[in-house]
Each structure stands twice: as structure tokens, then as C-alpha cells.
């Protein structure tokens, strides 16, 4: 079976300088072996019988794109894309290659469950043009993995990272903090172990208790406890300090990378550049309007295969609203916003939209402002959700 290859000798068909044409795409693979207790993502667990229909539907959805897109970044997330296995991933690449073409030097990421990653699977990824492996490791402590409902072992993680690195892929590791029962010392150990793995990228997430998850209902019943706010903060600050000390620079609220290894795909979101999205729950954005597909995999498939529109929520913004959003996602990055760049990209003056707020943040020590660049301080970053109401304004 010939492996599909996304990176091609074919010339870029669309003009790379046309900023309205997306140069990034997200593909959602909604399959998992089982659903973890904290997860509210768009996925089905234990329904591999739907995979064939999924490929059909994905092919149909891609047909919406009139001309093949030339991509600087591709992100295949889930769910668990690696759950498709070697054959399934070849099939996926074949479905995608008609409409998605990777430009030279493109970044293409696949999310994987550590226990799925084998040297063979990594080889298939390389053949398919993937350059990046994002591992849902969460922890290297058996107790934490058990508390989080994960079915892989610390050794699975080690093997997976090694396999990825050996094949020349950039490896990113997800780490969860504030898990049920997790101590500060356990987080400290996890961070040390994660640094020792040698990956180039780490994402750190505090456990969130999403409505409708099993964890949320256990919390309600008092069978699980949320970490205290102070402990959560200590864990998060510890993560920032340890990872930066280990050479991974924080470049966004939850993301850390060695120089040159930031996730360029995610930076597309935060730069508010357009992107395409395919699969259930996937969003697409044209600079003004963000449309999210229906979150249920079954509904998404059904709609597409019956010729209906799979779109769900639609977030349509005025230019000003889009500019305000740009301030928020921009300031969540450690680089912050540069006035000139902001004005050029959004058409609005940063100070006209948020001058008063910025001034008060600087006064309260939440932000720094050198006249050109505005950045949140550590203090500001830690409580930043409370800042944005002042920027998003009435329309938000």
C-alpha cells in the first residue's frame, strides 16, 4: 500500500502572500480507546467501527476546499490520532493529500497516546511528512496517571519520546498539574522527569473540571477534591521556573519550548491569522468569523454524508471585536503585543481600544509597557482571566 505523502513536489497553487487564504489546518480525529474522566473533548471511545465512515466524511468535508491548500502548518489532534494505527494513519494521509499540501519546511504535528507509539508508527509519520509528535503523557508518576484515568505507563512515555527523537521528530509532552491528590512534591518530580526525557516542547495544563465529565460529577458528590487555589498557583509557578531553568522558555500561558521549537501552528491562532479546520468540533477562521463544526462525531458524520452543513457555533466579529480578541490572545503570549505590529495587523490603535486598561495594569504591576511593547508580568499572567473583561467590552 503506497503511503500518502502530504509534502509534495507539487507547486503551491495559491499565492503565499494572500493573507486571506489559510496556511494552517487542523484535522480532528475523534477516536479513543477509552474516555478519561476529566475529558470533554469531541470523541467516541470504543467505536472503531465508525472509523471507515469517518474517513469518508472527512474526504467529503475536504471537498469543500476548491483548490488544494498549501500549508505552513498542519495539526492532527483528537481524540487520539495515534489510535488509528499504522494502517489508519496511512489512510488518513491519503485522504488529506488531495487538498492539503505541506510547503517546504512545514510543521506537521500528530497527537499521540504514548502507548501507541512504536518505531513503525514513527516511520509512517516521517513518510507522511510529519515533523512533530505531541504526546499526551500527563505525568510520569504511576499514581498520577491512575488518578487521571490514563492507561499508559511511565515507560511507555519514555519509549515514545525516544522513538520520536530518534526519528528526528520534534517531541512535545503534555503535563497535567493539580490532578486529584497530587502534591507539590509530585509535580516537582514530574517536571524533573519530563525535562530528563529531552523533548523540545512541553505544554502544562491545570486540570479543569468540565461540566458533564465524570470528574465533575465525582466532585459534586464529594468523591474528588479540587486543588486549593494557592496550591494550584504554586504548582504552576513551579512548572514555569523548572521548565525555564531547564531551557524551555515559556512563550504562552501553557506552552514552553527550546529556542526554535515553538509550535508554529498554535502561534497561527494567537496571531489571528486564518486557518482551516476539518472533523467534528474543529474550528476554522477567516480573520473575522470563526465557525466550529458540530461537536458530536456522529452528528458531524451524519450531516456531512447526508449533504448537510456540519457547522455548529459561529462567532462573527466586527473588525473592532476581532481586534479586541487579538489583544487578549496576544497578551497571553510572553512576547506580548507591539503597538506598531498590532496596528498594522488589526487596523486599530492598541491604546484607542485598551489604553486605559493597560495603564491601570501597569500601575497595579500586572503589565509592563516600554512604549512599544506591552507584556503581562508574571503576576498579571497568573490572574489574567480577570483582566480581559475590561478589553473585550460590551460586545463580548
Amino acid at each position, binding site marked *: 500500500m503506497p503511503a500518502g505523502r502530504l509534502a509534495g513536489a507539487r507547486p503551491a497553487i495559491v499565492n503565499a502572500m494572500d493573507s486571506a487564504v489559510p496556511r494552517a489546518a487542523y484535522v480532528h480525529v475523534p477516536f479513543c480507546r477509552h474516555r478519561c474522566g476529566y475529558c470533554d473533548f469531541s470523541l467516541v471511545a470504543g467505536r472503531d467501527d465508525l472509523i471507515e465512515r469517518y474517513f469518508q466524511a472527512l474526504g467529503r468535508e475536504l471537498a469543500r476546499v476548491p483548490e488544494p491548500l498549501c500549508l505552513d502548518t498542519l495539526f492532527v489532534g483528537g481524540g487520539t490520532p495515534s489510535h488509528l494505527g499504522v494502517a489508519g494513519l496511512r489512510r488518513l494521509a491519503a485522504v488529506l493529500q488531495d487538498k492539503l499540501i505541506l510547503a517546504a519546511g512545514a510543521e506537521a504535528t500528530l497527537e499521540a497516546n504514548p502507548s501507541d507509539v512504536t518505531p513503525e508508527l514513527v516511520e509512517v509519520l516521517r513518510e507522511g511528512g510529519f515533523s512533530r509528535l505531541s504526546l499526551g503523557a500527563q505525568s510520569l508518576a504511576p499514581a498520577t496517571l491512575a488518578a487521571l484515568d490514563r492507561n499508559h505507563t511511565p515507560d511507555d512515555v519514555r519509549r515514545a519520546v525516544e522513538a520520536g527523537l530518534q526519528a528526528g521528530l520534534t517531541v512535545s509532552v503534555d503535563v497535567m498539574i493539580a490532578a486529584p491528590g497530587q502534591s507539590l512534591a509530585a509535580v516537582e518530580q514530574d517536571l524533573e522527569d519530563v525535562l530528563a526525557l529531552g523533548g523540545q516542547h512541553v505544554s502544562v495544563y491545570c486540570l479543569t473540571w468540565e461540566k458533564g465529565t465524570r470528574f465533575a460529577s465525582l466532585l459534586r458528590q464529594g468523591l474528588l477534591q479540587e486543588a486549593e487555589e494557592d496550591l494550584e498557583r504554586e504548582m504552576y509557578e513551579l512548572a514555569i521556573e523548572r521548565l525555564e531553568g531547564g531551557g524551555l522558555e515559556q512563550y504562552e500561558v501553557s506552552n514552553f519550548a527550546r529556542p526554535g521549537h515553538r509550535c508554529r501552528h498554535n502561534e497561527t491562532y494567537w496571531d489571528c491569522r486564518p486557518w482551516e479546520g476539518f472533523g467534528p468540533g474543529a*474550528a476554522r477562521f477567516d480573520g473575522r468569523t470563526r465557525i466550529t463544526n458540530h461537536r458530536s462525531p456522529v452528528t458531524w458524520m451524519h450531516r456531512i454524508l447526508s449533504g448537510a452543513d456540519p457547522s455548529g457555533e459561529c462567532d462573527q466579529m466586527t473588525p473592532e471585536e476581532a481586534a479586541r480578541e487579538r489583544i487578549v490572545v496576544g497578551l497571553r503570549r510572553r512576547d506580548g503585543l507591539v503597538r506598531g505590529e498590532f496596528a498594522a495587523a488589526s487596523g486599530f490603535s492598541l491604546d484607542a481600544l485598551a489604553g486605559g486598561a493597560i495603564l491601570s495594569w501597569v500601575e497595579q504591576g500586572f503589565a509592563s509597557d516600554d512604549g512599544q511593547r506591552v507584556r503581562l508580568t508574571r503576576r498579571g499572567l*497568573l*490572574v489574567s482571566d480577570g483582566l480581559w473583561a475590561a478589553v473585550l467590552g460590551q460586545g463580548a
Partner: protein
Amino acid sequence: MSIDCKHIRNFSIIAHIDHGKSTLADRLLEWTGTVEKRQLKEQMLDDMELERQRGITIKARAVRMEYTHKGEVYELNLIDTPGHVDFHYEVSRSLACCEGAVLLVDAFQGVEAQTVANAYSAINLNLAIVPVINKVDLVHARVDEVLAEMEQSLGLDAADVVLASAKTGIGIDELLAGIVERIPPPAGDPNAVLRAMIFDSHYDSYRGAITYVRLVDGTVRKGQKIRFLETNSTHDVLELGQFVPQRRACEELFAGQVGYLVCNIKDVKQVHIGDTVTIPGDNGATAMPGYKPPQRMVYCGLYPSEGENFEELRDALEKLAINDPSFEYAPESSEALGFGFRCGFLGLLHMEIIQQRLEKEADLDLVQTAPNVTYQIKKTTGEVIEITNPQDVPDTGQIDEFRQPIVRTNFLTPVEHIGPIMQLCTDRRGVYLKTEYLSPTRAMLTFDLPLAEVIYDLHDKLKSVTRGYGTMDYELIGYFPADLARLDILVGSKKVDALSIICDRRDADRRGRSIVKKLRGEIDRHMFEIALQAAIGTKVIARETISAMRKNVTAKCYGGDISRKKKLWAKQKEGKKRMKSIGSVDIPQKAFMAVLDTGADRS
């Protein structure tokens, strides 16, 4: 139709709340054919929507009925009275217009605090009492015991008591006969100089003020001129008549009758309950005794949440005041809340009613400060000032005497709850006066208590310590000196004037501690630490700290997440409505009521 004095009976129904007064009134209207059964809206007399919702009578009403007794036709005027302690004065004026009162007691609940209070008001005005036990058909009715309570507490003869059920009509004929036979006809000379008493009014947007009167002497005719003694204003009588129960115009009303006058009065403030109506000029009648200007016992500040709604609030208050002369408002400004109004009410229920109307009718977001009673201060200069806002308390050096209103309070309770009530009252610095036993199982306790201690939560506390069986009623006996002080609250080292209270100096520590503790629970964590302090003058007596928000940052923000997270962030803003920013602290409306927390669980 002309009728002579001998065939007129003027009466009220007095009862404790929920003893069935409105149902009885409905039954009388139906029995006398005043209203046909099918037209009878339930509780005919409570025609304001709010009254219906709350099942209470706020404004007095008057209805004329016709009843044939032993072949003769009688005019029965039922003057309805409000049932809540806030409206004591209005009750007393309505009763003053009657020669008799139907005293209604629930066959299960028995004699309660308002039964006693209202019965004594009627007895003191020399009214003939027609006692009735209502709901005698209930399975739980305990008629014999209730008869004994009525004999014991009110000195009534059990043989005179009519046993009735307003719901099913049992005893209604007997009651109507009793009204005719036992209540005397009005005295008064139709040919004497006009002398009438105003016992109520309401505002009609087409006709202006509708004035409710009882004619004591003389006759009033359509087109004549009349004069109100209190305002000394003269008016033309454009229309007069009686309520049947709708307005029905007639040519004249004479001594003994009850009816209404329409005089093209655009401002209800000219119509004073208890005022005397007579003829213009020097030969008019003298004023009738008992008139008092409306006495506002409770004040609070009302502020628009959004400063720019000040004018809208003013318009809304003006509209309400037209309908309700007992409500008063004046502009004031607060450092914390900006521009708003100081509003005066007869009592806490009255305040709640007004506030609900404002929100309902004007759709305004309001911040209300905690209510306070009125105080008097005798300054060292000898001048006596009235304090309706804690901010107006002068420096200690200028105060000779700080006086607070004291009310005589009666509690009726099953005897097993006497202990807890004693405790409740002594905790509130009450002075014990006496205990009277109505029966071996029920007693009446009398205390003098500071009004401030009574209005806020005493009723709720009473209900809870007596499992709902205790009732209370109170009456102002005057202003008495006490060791009072103004307690200030500082939020983030800024004094928030709207949070100041006046309290007994001996309670200040406890109140201060409980207020700042309560505030700590009401004010959300901010980006910075907030100190909460209670102080008398410059002396801080209690302190709490709201620590700064430690972590509030959402993680995943990729692709479609952004739309969802934006809603979350915007919600944090939504939550700030109904808040006032003081300095940079957002204080929710509820926090302004925190000062009412008396720290009453005083263990």
C-alpha cells in the same frame, strides 16, 4: 336614595394577618348582593396586584352595602384596614371613622398579637365589638379554647361571639344581624357645619386625588367649596359618591355616611390621612382629634447602579410618591455611591413594597443601602436634630444626648417558648415589662425594645424560636437616650459612607466584627489584597482581609476554544452589574445589606 342616620352602620374588620379578613369581606359583599358571586374576584378588596401577591392588605378601602334586616333597609359601610404594623396610624384613623368593629379570630390560630393590638385600638376608641371566630368548620378548629382566650385576653363575653366560616358561609347571616343590632348608628347632625375626616386617598390618573371621607357632621354637596384644615387649602367638589364597590356618584353625603370626594387635586400630598374637611372661611368646624403627620420610621438610600440613571430614578420616585403620600424622598449624595435619594418609609414592609414597585414599574437597577431607623440628637447647643442618615451624626463633642426610638412590643406565644423569647429580647437590650396568661397554654409578654432591634430580623427570629406559633406587634412609645455611636466601615482603607451604621456602643465590637466578616464573604477576591475595617471615630475595632486572587488563568486556548473562553471572560464582566466600584473594589449590592447582620447568634 335617601336613608336616615338610624339606618347606617359603619364598621371595620380587624384581625391578625391570615385569619381570613379578606375572605369574610368577600362573603359580606356577596351576601348583601353588593357583588354577584360570579363577579367576585377572590379577595375583592385587595385590588392592588402586590397585595394579591403577598396576600396582605396595604391600603384601606371602603365599600357601601345594603342589607335588609327585619324588613328595614340598612346602609352598611365596611371600612377595610391594613393588616400590618407599619400602618398602625392608618388603622387607627380608619377605626376612628367607625362605630363598631368585627373582631375576627381564626378558630385554630386563636388570639394573636395583632388581634390584641387591633382590638385594643378599637376598644380605646369606644367601638362596639362584634367578635367572630372564623374557620369553625376546620377539622383542627379549637373553638372552646379560642373562646376562652378571647375572654381572658380581651375581656369579651363568649356568649357574644359569632361562630362562622367565611369560606362556606356559616354564621354570615348571624354576623350581619349582629352588625345591625350591636353596632350603634352614627350620631351627628346633618344640619350642622360640615366636619368630615379623611381616612384614605388614592391617585387616579384621570381624576387626580380621590379622597376617602367619613362625614361626622353636616352635609357635603356636589359643586360646593370645601377646605382641608391641615393644609388650609380650598377646593371645589367636582364629584362625590360612594364605593359599591366601584365609584358611584351621588348628589350629597350627610353626617354618618362614608364616601369619596373628587376635587381636582393633582397632588396627593395635600391629602392627609386624619385631616378634617370643613367649609371655607372663619365659620368652619374645628379639627378632629388624633391627626398626626405621616411618621417615617425607616430610612434607606436608593442609588442607581449606573450613575446616569439618576433622572430616571427621580421620575420613578415622583410617580410613586403621587400614589403614596406616606413615602418620602430627598436627593442625597454619597462619596461611595454617587447621587441618589434618601427615602423614608413607615416601616420595613412599606420599604420592600416601594422597592419592588420601583424595580417592577421602572425597570431600574438599584443599589439600596441598609435601612436605619430615625434618631434624635440633642446637641450641646440645646438644638434637637433628627437623624435619618448615619452620615449626619455630628462629632461626639457636639452631642449632648443621642436618642433612639423605643417600641412597646407584645409577643403572643405558647408558654413553652417564653424562655427563648425572653432571651431574644434581653439580647436586644429589651426591658421586660410583664407576662399575662391568656390561658394555661398561651401567654403575652411585653417588652420595651429599641425599634432598630425590632425591625430588622426580630420577626424572623421570633418565628424560628417559636416554630412559627409566636406573633408580635409593637407601638412606638417615644425617643429615649442611649449610649449610641456611629460605626464606620473602611474598605481598602477608604471609608464607605453607605456602610456606616448607628449602634449601641456596647454592641459595637460584636457588630463591627460580624459586619466585616460578612463583607469578606460578600466581596469577591480581587487582584489585590483588600483590608476591611470597622471603626468608631479613628479607633479600629475589627479587621478582616480578603486576600488577593492567587490564580485565575485558563489554559487551553486553541482554535475553537477562543470563542468559548471569550464568553467565560465576558461573564466575569456580567457579574459586575449591580455592583458599585469604590476605589477599585467592586462591592455587590448584597454587601450593602451586610451591615444588617447584627451578629445576633450571640453565642
